[in-house]
């Protein structure tokens, strides 16, 4: 069984939603992001999203834009990100890893080779922000062949009939972008999220996680109760980035700060 399915089955038994923290690969350097990645599960990450830095992250707000820029400056590539995950897998064989990014680096790598390499590095799922179902047939067959889940994104703007069609092909879990907007800006209200979940539950039996605009433990608790999990990205990156020195380099406080943020989110999700 896939790590993703095993994870959500276990959480269902525990009666709680998942915490999915996000980490931008190579932010601000390879060593720091690998060390953080390794310690995230123990701090309470149920699944981890690893962001692949891209030069033009048009769906991201300032926090992730800056993280991507630092990552690229530190030499991040898609290949380098897969190697990072491979290193992580030497010590951890159970925490699902979802690769999140934009399509061009994958397209450039070659979709078939990418899916093979991602699978052997230990990736479990793919979120490709700018590859909607209309275009995903370029990648989906190769992902399927390697047992990688192509995570479907839904949005408040997705009409009901479209939800049904796009979720028919979904696997792993569904990622609901809970606001119309970019990452790290505004947040959805409880009512909005509840209304969205009603629509989503009617369209799919897969677990549904909520993301975009979740930053406090309180918001993470609410989101993980209404849906099946909360994705937190910008809030963690922002607190960690505040510890960098004036050259943008990591300091002794960087990893502990990120882990403390993840712990506080995890406590809220579990309470």
């Amino acid at each position, binding site marked *: 069984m896939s790590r993703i399915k095993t994870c959500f089955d276990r959480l269902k038994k525990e009666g709680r939603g998942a915490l999915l923290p996000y980490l931008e690969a190579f932010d601000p350097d390879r060593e720091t992001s690998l060390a953080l990645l390794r310690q995230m599960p123990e701090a309470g990450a149920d699944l981890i999203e690893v962001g692949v830095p891209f030069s033009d992250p048009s769906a991201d707000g300032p926090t992730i834009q800056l993280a991507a820029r630092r990552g690229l400056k530190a030499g991040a590539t898609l290949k380098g990100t897969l190697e990072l995950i491979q290193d992580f897998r030497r010590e951890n064989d159970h925490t699902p890893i979802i690769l999140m990014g934009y399509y061009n680096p994958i397209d450039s790598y070659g979709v078939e080779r990418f899916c093979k390499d991602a699978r052997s590095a230990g990736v479990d799922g793919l979120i490709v922000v700018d*590859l909607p179902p209309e275009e995903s047939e370029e990648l989906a067959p190769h992902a399927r062949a390697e047992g990688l889940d192509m995570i479907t994104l839904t*949005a408040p703007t997705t009409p009901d009939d479209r939800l049904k069609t796009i979720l028919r092909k979904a696997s792993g879990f569904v990622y609901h972008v809970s606001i119309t907007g970019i990452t790290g*800006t505004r947040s959805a209200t409880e009512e909005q999220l509840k209304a969205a979940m009603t629509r989503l539950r009617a369209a799919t039996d897969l677990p549904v996680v909520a993301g975009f605009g979740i930053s406090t433990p309180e918001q993470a608790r609410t989101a993980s109760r209404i849906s099946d999990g909360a994705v937190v990205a910008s809030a963690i990156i922002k607190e960690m980035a505040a510890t960098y020195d004036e050259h943008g380099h990591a300091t002794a406080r960087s990893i502990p700060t990120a882990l403390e943020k993840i712990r506080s989110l995890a406590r809220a999700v579990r309470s």
Partner: protein
Amino acid sequence: MPVNKPITSQLNSLRTGPDERGHFGIHGGRFVAETLMPLMLELEKAYNHVKTDPQFQEELDYYLRHYVGRPSPLWHARRLSETLGGAQIYLKREELNHTGSHKLNNVMGQILLARRMGKTRIVAETGAGQHGVATATVCALFGLDCEIYMGATDVERQKPNVFRMHLLGAKVHPVTAGAGTLKDAMNEAMRDWVANVENTYFLVGTVAGPHPYPAMVRDFQSVIGTEAREQIQEQTGRLPDAVIAAIGGGSNAMGIFHPFLDDADVPLYGVEAAGLGLDSGKTAASIARGRPGVLHGNRTYLLQDEHGQITEAHSISAGLDYPGIGPEHSWLKDIGRVNYVSATDDQALDAFQTLTRLEGIIPALESAHAVAHAIVMASTMTRDQTIIVNLSGRGDKDVPTVAAHLGVKL
């Protein structure tokens, strides 16, 4: 008089693209986040509707004629032609449109569509500021909120246009990400749109972006080629021996090329900005130095590194300073229908001065790239041959830049 093509050539027409999913060969498509996808489908539906609505066409024709100032003349540039001693050069005078460039043709079409869709807030990206000015202009005309995203570098080198947009009531947001040029402005405009989908219309300024933008912008710009094709036949009795246009995203070029695509014996030339030279690493020539990839909603030739990261473009002309090109051009390149060539910053500066001195027309630096290629080509052709150059805009906005390059302090 226009020559009617025999029906057989219509069957193999190059003018029928894209397919229903927005693909031109391997290029184009709709690579956008799910939040935007339903909007793209809605926009496509709305556009397909107005395309065949005679009332919309009538309304558009009215504004093109009485507000934009169409048709634009086709000017036989005799002194320039004589000086070069070769082909006769004709200038399609898009710089005479209201606001000084071809940009208003597209903006007029899209603003009428946005109004029909009930949108009250307009966002747009701009490079040279010509598209921003055109957009701010129609927003003033129709009383709509207008937000323009412009790279910080471009804000600096196109100050006159920035002030014009302010005067017109638009809010100009300088974008500091990346190199602060058109690519970054495009990213930021998309971010604004995603966050304000309810009331906002994204008025794309070139034949790029997700489907249906490349096709829609081309259709609105095709008025250039439709007029030019008739005018050249009226003036010379036949079709031209070459059509030349500069390429940023490719809208003025697509606009003039499209009505000629099925005239198989009319060679078409798209002039990319070579910047400091094709191999200088400081270029904007995405076809000459790029490879296909996905950016800003479509697959097309892009300047990118071996890892699929988009690299910065460079051109003296802000309007050509873009690492991509519209997907229909990429397809026309793949099938070999259009020749893609380039002109350097220096060639454009020379052409800028030559045209100004010989014809009394100050071209935009963008358009000067097309003039530069005409100068190269004309002397290799005979005096009874003709070239049409799309003079996409006028150069007032570039006077400070040119002065700086010539070492003149204003």
